[in-house]
């Protein structure tokens, strides 16, 4: 089999992994090839609008497991291929030198046993770091069930080492991936968290769960993420809308991947990490799924209208962040500016801050943008919905969260 044929098979089987970020590492070039960039760099965007930063491949798509949702499950009749370590190194180096990529993302199906597979991955990455003196970014997927000494070895070679939680709940995992158990996955996360340092997975870890293949509600998913962030200090949880690749009585029949839902989860995930929200602020047992029409923050604000309108010349940073349409960048601009002048509505425009959504929720120097009598839930909801209908390019923004921060 030629390298090109292998690449076609092994990139195709790796494409469902959402993570492509190359940020968080400050690996420097010590006389070899390459360096990491702390903010990450996107090198291209594929026709699905996702960022391409790393050469994302599997070492092999052969697998002894039979996870229901996975294209590479044992029982599927697909063409199988195995990359040799030398082939992976050559591809990485040749792509890197032409500035196609920021580094390598290496995952793998399970060949013979978890330990055997990890050893092969380590051999590859060791070769890349030593023989080829490669200092670019490497993200490796740990194989659940592999021995701890192998995790230690792999973690000291890569920038990010992570394990996918695969499904939002343990029940989902039991049903759809009976050979994986969530203990094995969280053990890896705990190990990486405990040992993380400048020389061991400096860019930390991330994980991914498939959305829509099992029955969890958004609340359960978001609580799981919250818990993962707290327990294992993950950098990111990625959500991957389930793309039906297999027929199975245990799997739902979907015509299209649930992209909208994935988008809402990413928005909510952002709110957890950068806006000080808790999962339970956003959803509840009575209201366990996100509003398809309104983004989670606007939805929250309308349910808490008694906390608004907020005077932007006075309220704290975290209160500013609660205003729909205001993010960290705008909040910082407001904080640094208001020490020197009283901010009026037209100042916001000058400052490059969009007031499209925000205007319903703020006061500028005591003034509301229109007659204060209109500050009322129904009116605001209607207007926000009108704007979201006018803006049918939601689809466009849907994937914007894959972009490097």
């Amino acid at each position, binding site marked *: 089999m030629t390298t090109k044929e292998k690449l076609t098979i092994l990139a195709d089987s790796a494409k469902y992994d959402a993570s492509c970020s190359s940020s968080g590492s400050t690996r420097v070039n010590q006389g070899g090839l390459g*360096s990491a960039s702390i903010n990450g760099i996107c090198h291209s965007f594929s026709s699905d609008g996702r960022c391409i930063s790393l050469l*994302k491949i599997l070492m092999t798509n052969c697998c002894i497991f039979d996870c229901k949702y996975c294209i590479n499950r044992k029982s599927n009749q697909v063409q199988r291929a195995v990359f040799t370590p030398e082939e992976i190194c050559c591809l990485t180096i040749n792509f890197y030198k*032409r500035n196609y990529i920021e580094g390598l993302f290496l995952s793998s199906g399970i060949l013979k046993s978890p330990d055997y597979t990890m050893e092969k991955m380590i051999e590859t990455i060791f070769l890349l770091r030593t023989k080829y003196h490669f200092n670019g970014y490497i993200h490796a997927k740990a194989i659940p069930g592999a021995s701890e000494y192998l995790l230690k070895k792999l973690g000291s070679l890569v920038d990010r080492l992570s394990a996918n939680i695969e499904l939002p709940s343990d029940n989902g995992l039991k049903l759809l991936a009976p050979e994986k158990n969530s203990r094995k996955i969280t053990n890896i996360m705990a190990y990486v968290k405990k040992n993380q340092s400048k020389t061991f997975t400096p860019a930390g870890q991330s994980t991914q769960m498939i959305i829509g293949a099992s029955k969890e509600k958004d609340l359960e998913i978001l609580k799981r993420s919250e818990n993962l962030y707290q327990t294992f200090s993950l950098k990111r949880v990625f959500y991957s809308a389930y793309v039906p690749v297999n027929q199975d009585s245990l799997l739902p029949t979907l015509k299209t*991947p649930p992209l909208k839902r994935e988008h809402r989860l990413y928005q909510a995930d952002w709110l957890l990490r950068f806006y000080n929200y808790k999962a339970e602020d956003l959803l509840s047992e009575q209201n366990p799924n996100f509003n398809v029409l309104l983004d989670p923050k606007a939805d929250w604000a309308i349910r808490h209208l008694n906390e608004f309108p907020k005077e932007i010349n006075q309220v704290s940073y975290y209160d500013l962040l609660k205003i729909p349409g205001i993010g960290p960048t705008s909040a910082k601009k407001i904080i640094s500016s208001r020490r020197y002048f009283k901010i009026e509505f037209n100042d916001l425009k000058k400052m490059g801050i969009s007031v499209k959504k925000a205007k319903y929720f703020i006061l500028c120097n005591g003034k509301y943008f229109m007659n204060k009598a209109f500050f009322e839930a129904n009116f605001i909801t209607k207007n926000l919905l009108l704007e979201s209908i006018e803006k049918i390019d939601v689809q466009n923004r849907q994937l914007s969260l894959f972009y490097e921060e």
Partner: protein
Amino acid sequence: MKNENIYIYENFKELLSVIAYLIINQIKPYNIQKKEKVTPSLFTNLIHLDTHTYQQFWNKKLSSKIYSLIKDAYRSEDEYKELVLYYVLLNYQKYGEKVIHMRNLKCVNKLLALSKYVHSENHKWKGFLRFQEMENHFYYAEFEPVNDILELIAPHFKTRFQNENWLIKDVKRKKYAFKKGNHLFFLQEEDILKLELKQSLKEEECEDLWKTFFHTIAIKERTNKKCQQNFMPKRYWKYMIEMEREQ
């Protein structure tokens, strides 16, 4: 009718001196322009100052923060960038360092916006620039940035590709960054006598592998070309080999 005065400068240092002259003499300029960009007209006077005495004016006066903002904004191609710098520095004289937070001033917002634009373009090209492998392990790239960022981007590739020798050409400005061994040179068209570069034998195969990867990694069920184009506007495509088919 009285003619309007346009003040002429040749480089960044001279621009700062011209602005110093204008501020000291309390002259509000009609425009300030770079020598090669000026188009004389019947209704304007071109004034080329002897700015020698003003060269020292900004020494120790500009904080490193404001200096780098100004320097970055200067890399932009904005038609009125010089006036923006003039008004910012005028206000800087009055208010000092805090001027960069005074976003109610139009010139301050413009300065910050220009500098941000320059930096974000620089960041994008760090990813979108494509090298080709030439004979003798030499690497060559062409690009067309909107802003004048060659000097900003070259050091990034110098640290990244320490053992490789390379040449990057800013096609529009006919400028080159040339990295050989530990040295980085910035050259003009006339410095390069003869550029005879031949692609290495491996190049075509490698480009083909990259295109294969690029097309394979996309999830067909999620196709969203508009989103792709939002992140990677068309003006970058010309030099990206994977976008060849799309143009």
